[in-house]
């Protein structure tokens, strides 16, 4: 009976620990996953990093980088990008898939892409002027709201 009780108590405290462990921790830019570092050097070569951190929920669940020009990128735990937020400038044009870029050039040439986000269904784009677009992974438009 006694060992069981101890195990249960231990489990209880462990659980509490886990519950409280959902926090952010600072991470140096050079400690980011290789994939993430490559992404940054490819698409954001000039800008310096102001602040970078990792999100921890028992294990590392993701990374986040804020550049000195106010852009923000979120990464998955393996370093693949999840969200590119360039609210105060523009998402690098070479990052937008070709099919979507052509679509945008054709129908909305005056709207800059501020934010790009990977969703389950595909890619979600936020354009200047408050237009939200959802593209499938193949590049066809699924949803639009403006």
């Amino acid at each position, binding site marked *: 009976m006694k060992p069981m009780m101890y195990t249960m108590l231990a489990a209880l405290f462990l659980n509490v620990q886990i519950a409280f462990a959902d926090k952010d921790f600072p991470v140096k830019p050079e400690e980011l996953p290789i994939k993430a570092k490559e992404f940054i050097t490819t698409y954001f070569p000039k800008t310096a990093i102001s*602040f970078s951190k990792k999100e921890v929920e028992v294990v590392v669940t993701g990374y986040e980088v804020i550049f000195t020009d*106010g852009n*923000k990128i979120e990464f998955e735990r393996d370093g693949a990008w999840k969200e590119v937020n360039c609210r105060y400038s523009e998402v690098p044009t070479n990052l937008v898939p070709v099919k979507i870029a052509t679509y945008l050039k054709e129908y909305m040439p005056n709207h800059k892409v501020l934010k790009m986000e990977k969703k389950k269904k595909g890619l979600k784009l936020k354009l200047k002027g408050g237009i939200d677009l959802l593209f499938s992974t193949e590049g066809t438009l699924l949803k639009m709201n403006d």
Partner: protein
Amino acid sequence: MKLFLHISTRVCIALFLLFSIWGSIFYYVIIGEIIDEMDDSLENYSEMIIMRKMAGEELPQSDNGSNNYYYIRDISQLAYESQPHIVYADTLIYIEEREETDPARILTTLFKDGEGGYFELNVATPSIERDDLQRSILVWIIVLYLTMVVLITGMNLWIIYNSMKPLYRFLHWLDQFTLGKQNRPLTTNTSVTEFRRLYDSANRNTARMEQMYQLQKLFIGNAAHELQTPLAVAQNRLMLLMENGNLNEEQMVEIGRTCETLQQMTRLNKTLLLLSKIENGQQFELSTIVINNIIEELCDTFDEIYATKEITLSIEADSLIRVTMNESLCRSLLVNFIKNSYVHNVHNGQIIIILNSSYLRISNSGKQQALRSDKIFQPFYKENTSERSTGLGLALCQAICKMYNYQLEYSYEQGIHSFTVVWKEPLLL
């Protein structure tokens, strides 16, 4: 403790433990989740400010009327490099607008710009609401916990008690069951397989017991009865032989001894028959008997027989004691006790008979050793291997006492053996 209470108690203890553990885990997980949510909102707020600051956009008002609150200050490179970049803390902050100090959750973030500037950003949100929430969650968890424990305990008691009803019915039936009497069969009124099996096997076994008991009774009664005649015939023939035959001295002595053995056998047989009658619950005719007379008469007889032992006899009787018994059974009882007290006595010994309204005690001197009180009332148990003893005397006494609900006790003290018959309902005159 009743079975259903026993089971319920155990279930309750288990539930109590499990629920306590569940409740505490639940509470801490919920609280953790709340703190997480709060931290998440602080993180978002902090990111938003850093992004704006970096982009050179206008920052929101420090105290914008919402609960969130922030301030940015420049720090040295040394401070930036020596301090952790993300710190969560619970402290007290002074809120100017309300002019009071409140507990708050603070997230401190260090960051830098491209031109070698280093900044410290503090974002805070008051935790008063969180504390309130925490308290009310705790209260509700306790309330829920107690309600659940009480409800489940009650439900358990009720369910188990109802499920166990056939068992209690069975036990009740078993208590009323007496071998050799008219017993009602146990009717099956349950659909539970285990109980049906229990009922079935109880019915089967009691029926078999009953049958065996009847057969045994019949056999003992018949055997003893059938032996009576041959024994009498054999005795008579030997008598005739002694009277008519031209026998010499030696043969006469031998036949005399055989007759004695046969008499012994007849006695044994009679006792056995009587014992079997009593145990079969046969009804004996009752009459009111004055015990004093019988005792005196028997004592006179045995005093003469065992005159050579020179035994001192004293009878202490308060008054005339009357009991309602069958006369011959009463006589057998007293004969056995008084005869025993003479037979097992020592030379120059003594016998004390005390008779009063509540008991009859016959004490005699004898062997300097107590008899085995657990064995002496068993049939055919003999302390010594005397030929004249049947080993049935005390067994018969006990059977008679049991039939009339008298208590029979044996005690030994300093060489005096005492047998006491306690009348339950003494009739005093």
